[in-house]
């Protein structure tokens, strides 16, 4: 389990022997529900080699480049080589994709210290610092040490990518058209090339995938509000800012220069025709403005949009910044609204929206604003409260909290609502999994029959009814698995973003 990053260990000295304690890595376990999506998107972003690499690494937990390569070659030896590439070319392609994945942080290096629990590491660091001092530390000094260690930890995270090394490669860059950084004119054709270190273990970095999916979702928000061109622009901005995104919980992306943005837009984007211009503004010749001015207009529209996601970077002209906090809040809100609408119906969503907009309200005010009788409103409020979406705040008028003399204010706290919904979603996932086991158990005899070696060779040994049963089982399992993936998606949006 440690090999697969599911468990971590800690060693403690107890009496006269060292006892090892093991702990499950909850975050990693919950990320495993996203594995199907990771496989598909690694194929989309890194082509077929990316998918092969991702599935091999997932099968083993962590791997080095060399082992990964060997494994892929073993697994695909039997299948015919596609597109007639030679073996050496394929090896090169796989290595190149691997390097690209490491550079884009989709694969992250694993250090031996990763197998220790986080609390243990912190305690060991603290102990190291305090051992340097002669007297036991006071509370203030301890706080200073902790702050210093945290700063160092965040600095380590922000530092360069672990596991890549730069070597001087004197080969021709025809067959390795990888990264040409600087060219040293003195020694002939030396090129600095980035390669993956061959003895560092890598694992899939789920956070990176989640960050990219979130960026895609933010861009989709703009597509529904404006047009596909706006989505492409936001996509480009986020792609440029993605390099600096370390973890999900950041509030703002790094600032992007509008000139850089103009140069990195995809070539098929059509800025001019998708904007409608006021003929008076165009001037006497009535020509449409150039792409640069159109981009400015677009950025202006995006900035003035009610969602307030794109903002001008204060103090620096021409730089734009994306407020990830606002974006994630909007994504969560729309998901919760969808869930409530499907589960309960639109009157409930009406109440929820109103409370989100207006803050805390009393029952009477809610019934007036939502145009529903008080009895109905009361029923809906209590249902939503037991579901976890609403909160009640008591404001007493007098010293004693008599129910007749207190105000009861209802409100929606988005983080709390998200948390309780995530809980329910995990319950749903557990139900789906259990249902999967039950369905398999119902047909256990048939499945055992299918495992027989003579049946595996010859399908005709199963009669028609059994084959039909197998088909039903397959379709049921597929439906359950698909639903589980959808629920896992929702849980990630609510929990991680």
């Amino acid at each position: 389990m440690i090999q697969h990053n599911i468990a971590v260990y800690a060693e403690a000295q107890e009496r006269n022997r060292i006892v090892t304690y093991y702990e499950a890595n909850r975050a990693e376990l919950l990320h495993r529900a996203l594995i199907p999506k990771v496989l598909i998107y690694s194929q989309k972003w890194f082509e077929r080699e990316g998918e092969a690499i991702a599935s091999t690494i997932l099968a083993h937990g962590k791997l080095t480049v060399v082992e990964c390569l060997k494994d892929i070659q073993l697994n695909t030896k039997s299948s015919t080589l596609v597109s007639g590439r030679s073996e050496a070319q394929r090896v090169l392609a796989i290595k190149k994709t691997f390097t690209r994945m490491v550079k884009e942080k989709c694969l992250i290096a694993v250090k031996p210290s990763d197998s220790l629990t986080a609390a243990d590491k912190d305690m060991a660091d603290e102990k190291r610092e305090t051992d340097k001092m002669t007297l036991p530390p006071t509370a203030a000094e301890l706080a200073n040490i902790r702050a210093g260690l945290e700063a160092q930890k965040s600095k380590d995270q922000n530092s360069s990518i672990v596991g890549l090394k730069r070597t001087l490669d004197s080969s021709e860059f025809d067959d390795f058209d990888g990264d040409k950084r600087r060219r040293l004119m003195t020694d002939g054709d030396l090129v600095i090339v980035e390669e993956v270190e061959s003895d560092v273990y890598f694992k899939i970095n789920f956070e990176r995938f989640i960050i990219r999916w979130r960026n895609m979702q933010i861009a989709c928000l703009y597509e529904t509000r404006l047009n596909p061109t706006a989505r492409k622009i936001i996509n480009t901005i986020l792609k440029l800012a993605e390099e600096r995104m370390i973890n999900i919980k950041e509030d703002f992306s790094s600032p992007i220069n509008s000139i850089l943005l103009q140069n990195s837009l995809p070539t098929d984007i059509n800025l001019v025709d998708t904007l409608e211009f006021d003929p008076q503004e165009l001037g006497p010749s009535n020509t449409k403005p150039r792409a640069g001015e159109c981009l400015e207009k677009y950025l202006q529209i995006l900035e003035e949009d009610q969602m307030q996601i794109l903002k001008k970077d204060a103090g620096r002209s021409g730089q734009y910044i994306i407020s990830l906090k606002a974006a994630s809040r909007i994504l969560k809100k729309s998901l919760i609204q969808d869930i409530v609408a499907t589960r309960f119906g639109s009157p409930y969503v009406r109440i929820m929206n109103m409370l989100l907009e207006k803050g805390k309200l009393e029952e009477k005010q809610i019934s007036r604003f939502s145009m529903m009788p008080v009895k109905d409103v009361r029923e809906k409020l209590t249902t939503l409260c037991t579901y976890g979406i609403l909160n009640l705040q008591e404001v007493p008028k007098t010293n004693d909290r008599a129910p007749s003399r207190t105000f009861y204010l209802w409100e929606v706290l988005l983080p709390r609502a998200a948390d309780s919904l995530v809980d329910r979603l995990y319950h749903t996932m557990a139900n789906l999994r259990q249902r999967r086991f039950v369905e398999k158990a119902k047909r256990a005899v048939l499945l055992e029959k299918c495992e027989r070696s003579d049946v595996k060779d010859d399908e005709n040994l199963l009669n028609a009814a059994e084959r039909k049963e197998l088909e039903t089982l397959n379709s049921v399992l597929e439906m359950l698995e698909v639903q589980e993936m959808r629920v896992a998606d929702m849980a990630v949006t609510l929990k991680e973003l």
Partner: protein
Amino acid sequence: MSRGGGRGGGGGRGRGGGTPGITMFGPDAIQATFKNPGETYPDIVLPVARPASDEEGVMFIAMKKLQDTLYSSPYYLTEPKKPGTIVRYTDRYHTDRAATRPKLETIKASCQARHRLDKLGENEEDDEADEEIDPETGLPKKTGDGDDDVEEEDYEDEEDAEGNDYNDTYFDNGENDVDLDMDEDAVEY
């Protein structure tokens, strides 16, 4: 008198319900819910799930492939099947999955190699040039010597500590466990 009691009760109820804002919480509200409890299991319109899209179908197939790989990998440990009391004709066709998997020891070798490599890295640190990344901590080697020594000591302690004899029996799947605490036959309170 029932009529008088009914009137008195009706009057009291009317007074309690007439004042606004009190009926939400308090003794009168409880009466109201007892009078109209509602259905125990109201009918819900069960939503029909959207059928799987193409992308989701591909995801399912990819996941199934990965699952099959995992089940036949050395990491998926199952107990080997014990021979049953009755020998059946179909037994010859049943393959024992536990027997066909590659053993976990094949992986163990590479893990040990990694530990050895880490130790090698500790010695090579002193010889390497500035740009090299320290293989064990993954940070560019700019830290002072003091830290490295402490880390080396920690690692050596982990490897050579007396009570730590897990290295040999780690991948045993629990076969040669010795009860260190003498707990096995003890009574639990």
